[in-house]
């Protein structure tokens, strides 16, 4: 076997392929690709041990733009393909790239089971709340009232929350990040990849053609800071340009309250401190968002417990281990008789 090679401190470009990137101008995928390359550079795993597995959709073209191994599979099935791959070779660093339609509509079942089985995959769900590659139809995360070629009168379906889905499926690492936040995105991806077991990151991604501005409430220079709640383990759940708002728990109703902090508002001590190990808090954070609350971003839940039992293959070894004699014995293991 050829010797593994990776520079000690690789540049993000070390992980870029020679392919011309072909997304629409202004697409959030460019920023995410950049964030992924930065995360890969920081982790500095050999390219040959890294595999990107994707389904179908705009986001699923991503493996072509990386200089690692890549498998652009079929619609919705990337978690299943990646599961077989990881069981077959647990030494591989496997990333699943999927979208809101690919991962939560046609492939929702596989997503559920990849998370439930806690397969050590790094699952990146690009959520632009629309079908892009098929030209703008309603997706399972599209908001109520969304007008699209398949919902000309506005959607009457309630959207699914990717984060709540992941928690409900038993995901042990659940995070949310925003495409354009390059200061935060790579760090979250690195943490997801380092987490032993399945990690799930919802990436809010702008579709500049079919759903432009879906997340401008978060990116808006003026209003954005009041809409974004960056959660960090051990730090108070505060938001706003100067941290002037925070979340408080009403213990009687078990509900979160968005409050002003400081003189005239509530005291700093009343503000909840983020505990990413706490599944109950994760459940609460997963349910909140605009208009009454900011949208939580960052690592919402990370189960620190030792990884639960999960399917692991015996196939990692480079050579087979059984002998002809052992297999002959296997065939003769029951009900044999000698004829003379």
């Amino acid at each position, binding site marked *: 076997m050829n010797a593994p090679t990776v520079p000690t401190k690789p540049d993000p470009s070390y992980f870029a392929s020679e392919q011309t990137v072909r997304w629409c101008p202004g697409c959030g995928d460019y920023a995410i690709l950049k964030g992924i390359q930065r995360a890969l550079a920081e982790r500095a795993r050999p390219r040959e041990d890294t595999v990107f597995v994707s389904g179908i959709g705009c986001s699923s073209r991503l493996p072509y733009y990386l200089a690692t*191994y890549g*498998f652009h599979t079929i619609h919705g099935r990337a978690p299943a393909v990646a*599961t077989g791959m990881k069981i077959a070779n647990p030494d591989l660093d496997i990333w699943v790239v999927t979208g809101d339609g690919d991962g939560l509509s046609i492939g929702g079942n596989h997503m559920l089971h990849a998370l439930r089985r806690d397969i050590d995959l790094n699952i990146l769900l690009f959520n632009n709340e629309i079908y892009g590659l098929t030209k703008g139809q309603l997706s399972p995360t599209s908001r109520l009232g969304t007008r699209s070629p398949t919902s000309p009168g506005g959607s009457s379906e309630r959207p699914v929350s990717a984060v709540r889905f992941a928690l409900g499926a038993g995901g042990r690492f659940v995070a949310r990040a925003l495409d354009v936040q390059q200061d935060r995105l790579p760090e979250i991806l690195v943490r997801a990849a380092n987490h032993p077991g399945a990690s799930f990151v919802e990436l809010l991604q702008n579709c500049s053609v079919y759903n432009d501005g879906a997340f401008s409430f978060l990116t808006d220079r003026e209003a954005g800071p009041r809409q974004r709640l960056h959660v960090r383990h051990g730090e108070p759940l505060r938001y706003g340009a100067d941290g002037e708002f925070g979340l408080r728990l009403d213990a009687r109703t078990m509900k979160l309250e968005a409050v002003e902090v400081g003189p005239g508002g509530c005291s700093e001590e009343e503000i909840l401190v983020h505990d990413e190990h706490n599944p109950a808090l994760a459940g609460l954070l997963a349910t909140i968002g605009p208009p009454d609350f900011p949208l939580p971003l960052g690592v919402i839940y990370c189960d620190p417990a030792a990884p639960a039992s999960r399917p692991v293959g*015996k196939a990692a070894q480079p050579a087979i281990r059984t002998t002809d004699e052992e297999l002959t014995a296997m065939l003769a293991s029951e009900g044999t*008789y*000698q004829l003379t």
Partner: protein
Amino acid sequence: MGSESGGVRERTRVAVGVVRFAGDSGDGIQLMGSRFTQAAAERGYDLATVPDYPAEIRAPSGTTFGVSSFQIRFGGDAIRNPGDLADTLVAMNPAALKVHLDGVREGGTVILNTGSFNEKNLKRAGLESDPREDGTLKGYRLVALDIGKQTLDAVSGLGLSRKNAARCRNMYALGLVLWMYGAGIEPARAWLEERFGAGTPVGRANLRALEAGHAFGETAELAAGAPVYDIHPAELTPGLYRTITGGEALAFGLVVGAHKVGRPLFFGSYPITPASPVLHRLAALRDNPDVTVFQAEDEIAAISSCIGASYAGCLSGTSTSGPGMALKTEALSLACAAELPLVVIDCQRSGPSTGLPTKSEQTDLMYAVWGRPGEAPLPILAPKSPSDCFDTVVEATRIAVRFMTPVIVLADGYLVNASEPWLLPNVADIAAVPAKLHTDPEGFQPFMRDEALARPWAIPGTPGLEHRIGGLERDADTGEVSYDPENHQRMSDLRAEKVARVADALPAQKVEVGPPSGKLAVISWGSTYGVVREAVEELRTEGEEVSQIHLRALHPLPRGLGELLAGFDRVVVAELNSGHLRALLRAEFLVDVEGLNQINGMPFLVRDVKAGIRGRLM
């Protein structure tokens, strides 16, 4: 070897025996059958068995749709199918008698468990009158005894509840039938001791029932006139044998096949009737360090996980049946496009849709050949008998790896459950054809091809070979995504030509029985082999000019087949569908192939095949 038991009565010497056990699905019928099979095998008989069981796990007792049965044909001749009609029927209740009496030959023996012939059970079976009294059994030899009561008497004093005591009745009936055919109880005794432990109440009770049934015959309590037989063993090649079902052989074939191509086996599957025995058998190999079994969340995930594992360097296999094949379609096309090795075992069952899950057919052939959107050719093989399932799957693994392609193995529900004696192979004697993993970065591109047109197997973890593959069309020269029309034509041609060349790696077609040209050839494929062979051999003995051609490779069709067909005045395909292979042969060879078809969920009967052929020889 079972001990010979003489008995007082003169035994009738026959060459072959056919016994059918029938009763409620909870009566332990399959167990009776499998234990009788083991005893017959150990006496040195050739044999073939077939179970027939309802789709319900425990259908309401006493009903006709809850009847489970097991037929075994055994003897000194070469036995290639479980036989049309039984010599002896064991009917544990009225419903079993009603369903299976038609399957007993004229003058055959019917063993009735009279204790179950009460008003309630007659009514449940939908019988207006008692068949023992209304002339139904005229022309049969009747052995009527209350097996239930005899069993209770035999096991009394062992402290079993009445319910558990009554459950030993299958062993009583087994003992009796073993005695009728001159077989001892040793193999069954050994099995009971292993299963229940020698000293346990349940083990002792079952053993006592077995002995009591056997002794009932031996002490001449058996009604006068009931036949007792003496059957000589077959002249089988000496050696170590076991009986094997197709399900077991399919599983073992994957293990040995993967071993012989030098790759670990990844088996990803989803439970479905009648394919689940393959999954169970492989799952039981949990201590084998080269076998990984994964029960997926659905049929699509099962094959998708296989594709992922193949990409990572395993020899992958999955098993399913018609409904699952339908779901696997898109992923199978991906395996064709990505050109990854994979063995898909389709245990065909009756359709359409859920159809008859426990009944067998050959109705997926057209689907297997043509049932993928886009041009997605792949090789297809079909095993002809339970033990041939092993050889066929080993062959399939070799083809999958040599040609970097998914391969479909068309087994069926009958084959999965049927059994026969198997002279155990020495695995060291099976040729190893190790897969070549590509490691050289020099000049590498993922769709470069060798002389067989196979692309390289370049697995993640190999430095310098990082590449991207997928379902999008590839440039034949660079391996990059390509939308170029000329390139798509070229790649389509390459994929087709690669699969066509599989025929060069397989034996040229020969006749199975009879001369290689003449008046009429019957073509069989898959599990109908044994019935068709016997029909053709009997017709030849009766002076008819007929040959049998049996196909293992269904796509690509074997070399030499066209020439062979041209040498016959008439060609008839016998198959359990509406004419799939017939249509393929007509299209391929422009030969006026005729069909002999049946779609009733049951295997062919020899007499029906003979009649069908005879009708064309007039």
